[in-house]
């Protein structure tokens, strides 16, 4: 379930959360926002995403999470490097808003995928903690 970083699109933002790099596959979504502040571009997303980036910067360790935003469920991996953060993402579900039946089905599917992804990430965190306790990290 982890974000396949070799294939996933990514962006990099600096210590002031300005987008300073956009990978080729992220251009369709983020290309026009290069050089701009992430939260100016996506103000509604701040409270959903920023705590994870703050944690990544604070701990210096990658943070992986699943999040719904703007009709999509994404697996996100935030990798800190100094004050910069590289954000890999993978869209795992998209809402179908064409018809009410499509909306209901895709909403059920998106929420199920969100829960499954959160559970997988949680289990992986527990495994990592246990490995650390067992001295096998």
């Amino acid at each position, binding site marked *: 379930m982890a974000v396949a970083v070799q294939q996933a699109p990514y962006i990099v933002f600096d210590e002031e959360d300005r987008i300073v790099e956009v990978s080729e596959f992220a251009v369709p979504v983020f290309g026009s926002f290069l050089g701009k502040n992430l939260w100016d571009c996506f103000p509604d*997303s701040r409270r959903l995403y920023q705590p994870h980036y703050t944690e990544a910067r604070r701990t210096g360790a990658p943070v992986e999470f699943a999040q719904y*935003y*703007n009709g999509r469920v994404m697996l996100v991996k935030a990798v800190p490097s100094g004050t910069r953060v590289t954000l890999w993402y993978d869209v795992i579900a998209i809402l179908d*808003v*064409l*018809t009410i039946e499509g909306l209901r089905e895709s909403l059920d599917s998106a929420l199920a995928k969100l829960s499954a992804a959160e559970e997988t990430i949680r289990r992986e965190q527990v495994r990592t903690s246990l490995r650390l306790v067992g001295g096998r990290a």
Partner: protein
Amino acid sequence: MTRTDDRYVVDHDDRIVAVVGHFEDTLGPFLGHSLWEASPQAERLFAPYFAEARRTGRGVEFTSFYAGRLARRRVVPTGQILTVHVTPLEELDVRTLATLSESVLRVEAELARQASERLDPPARASLQALL
């Protein structure tokens, strides 16, 4: 949502022949093409009402959810040509799970209200008596 002048016109083959308001952007590029080509999956939702309007020669009104919005549609026939007036009622807000949840509830409530209104008065009175 106060715009009430959005409308489009289709000919006897459901080809788009005129667009006004919001539809200039969405259906305008499809002038001369079938409405069903421009609006995937809309045919099974709208076509029965179009057929009724053409068959009876009278206007038909219905409420349906399509492409992220709930709207009331009034189909007015002139022979086999139909003018479809569209009044938006609710719009889906997909930004966050909270806004999505709120807007889905509003859409579902409006659909339920419309379904209830479609019941004839005696049937509604019977249902209310049961509650």
